[in-house]
C-alpha cells in the first residue's frame, strides 16, 4: 500500500468548521447530560 499522507489543514476556515460541527452535536448532548444529572441528584437527597 502506498503511504499517501496529506497534511491536515490548520487554517481558520477548517477551525471554524470544526467548532461548528462539534458545537452542533455538543449542545444537545450537554443538554441531555444536564437533564440527566438534574434527575440523578434526587438519588442522593
Amino acid at each position, binding site marked *: *500500500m*502506498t*503511504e*499517501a*499522507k*496529506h*497534511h*491536515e*489543514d490548520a*487554517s481558520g476556515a*477548517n477551525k471554524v*468548521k*470544526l467548532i461548528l*460541527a*462539534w458545537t*452542533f*452535536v455538543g449542545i*444537545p*448532548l450537554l*443538554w*441531555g*447530560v444536564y*437533564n*440527566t*444529572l438534574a*434527575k*440523578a*441528584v*434526587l*438519588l*442522593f*437527597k
Partner: protein
Amino acid sequence: MATAAQADSGGIFHWLDRSHTVAKPGFSRWLVPPAALCVHLCIGQVYAFSVFNLPMTRLIGITESAPDDWKLTELGWIFSIAIVFLGLAAALTGTWLDRVGPRKAMFTAALCFGGGFLISALGVHLHQLWIVYLGYGVLGGCGLGLGYISPVKTLITWFPDRPGMATGMAIMGFGGGAMIASPLSVWLMQQFATPTHVGVMETFIVLGLVYICFMMVGAVIVRVPPKGWAPEGYVAPAQPKKLVTTEHVHVDQALKTPQFYLLWGVLCLNVTAGIGVLGQASAMSQEMFPGQISAAAAAGFVGLLSLFNMVGRFFWASTSDYIGRRNTYMIFFALGMVLYAIVPWTGNIGSVALFVACYAVIISMYGGGFATIPAYLKDIFGTRYVGAIHGRLLTAWSAAGVFGPVLVNYIREYQIDHGVAKADAYSVTMYIMAGLLLVGFVLNWLMHPVGEHHHMNPEDVDA
C-alpha cells in the same frame, strides 16, 4: 461482485456516491466523529421510546385508558420489533454499506429512521397499531441498524492510531441519544397536548423531521480518506502485535472462523449481563432498598446509569487503544463478576452509595463492550470488511436483548413465587449474571489470531 466504483449512481443522488465523499487535501479527520455523532445521537432515541408508552395507552381516553385504547403489552412490541430489525438490517446490509460508502448509508438511515416516525404518526392518527409497528418498528428499525454501523469503518480508517477512541466517540452518541430524546419527547408532548389530545402524533412528526435533518448533516459532513492515507506522523507498528492483524478477512470467510463466534459470545454475554439489569434498574433499586430509594430517586438512579453507559463507551474504548482489546474485555468480565457478586451484599448492609457505585461501573462496562467491539473486530479481521462483520456480529445484541430481560424477570418471579422476600429476590440473578460473565471470560481468553488460510489475497483487498 460489484466493486465500490461500480456502486456509483448517476442523477441527483450522485453526491451520495463514495467517489464524492473522498476527502480533499486539508480535510480534518476530527470532522468525522461529529458526523458519526449526528447519526448516533438520533438513533440512540430508541432507548427512550418507552416515554411514549403510557401516553399511547390514552389516545382515545385522554386522561385514562378507554376500552378501545392500545394496551401496554401491545405497545411493548414496537421497541422489540425495532431492535429485531436493527439486528437484521445491520447483518444484511453490511456488505452493501461497505460498497456504497458511509454517506449513502447515513442518508438511507436518516430517511428510514425519520420516515419511521412519520409513518407512526399516521398510525397514531388513524389509531392503527400495525402502521406503528411497520413505521417505527420495521422501517425505523432498519434505520437504526444502518445508522449504527454506517460510520464504524470510516472512523477506523481515519483513526488507525486510535480506532477504539474513534468508534467509542460515535457509539457514545448512541448512549447519549436517549438522554436527549427522553426530556425532549416529554416536553414536546406537553406543548402539543390539549384537553382532547395527548400530543403523540405531533411529537412523532416533529421528531421525525428533526431527526432526518440532523442525520443529513452527518451525511453531508462525512468523508472517507483517500486510498493509502495515513495520519501525519503515524507509523504502522513494524512488529505487529499477536492479536492485531495487518491482513484482511472477507465477511463471508469471517463467519467460518471460530474467532467470529468467540466474539459473538463475548458480546452477547457482556450485553446480557447489562441489559437485564438496565431494564429492571428502577424496580430493583426500590425493592432492594425499601424506604431508602423512592420512585423519584429510582428515576435518578436510571438516569445516572444511562450517563455511565454513555461515558463508559468512550472511556473503555479509548482505554482499549492502550491496553489492548482482549485485556479490556478481561477487565469487563473479571471486574463484572466481582461487582455482581458484591451487589447482594450492598443490599444486606443497606449501603445505597456502594450499590450505586457497583452498578455505575457495571453499566459503564456494558456500554464499553458495545464501543470496544468494532476495534476488536478490526484487530482480528482487518479493516476491509469490518463494517459488514460488525453488522453480522450485532445479532448477538438482538439475542442478548431477549436473554437478559428474560433471565432477570423470570428468575425474580420464580424467587418471589417460592417465598423469597422482594429485597432478596435479585441475589440469585446477580450470581447467575456473574456466572455468565465467567463464561464470557473463558471465551475471551480463548481468542487467538485468525488462521492465514482465511486471509484475503492482496489483489482482492483493493477490488
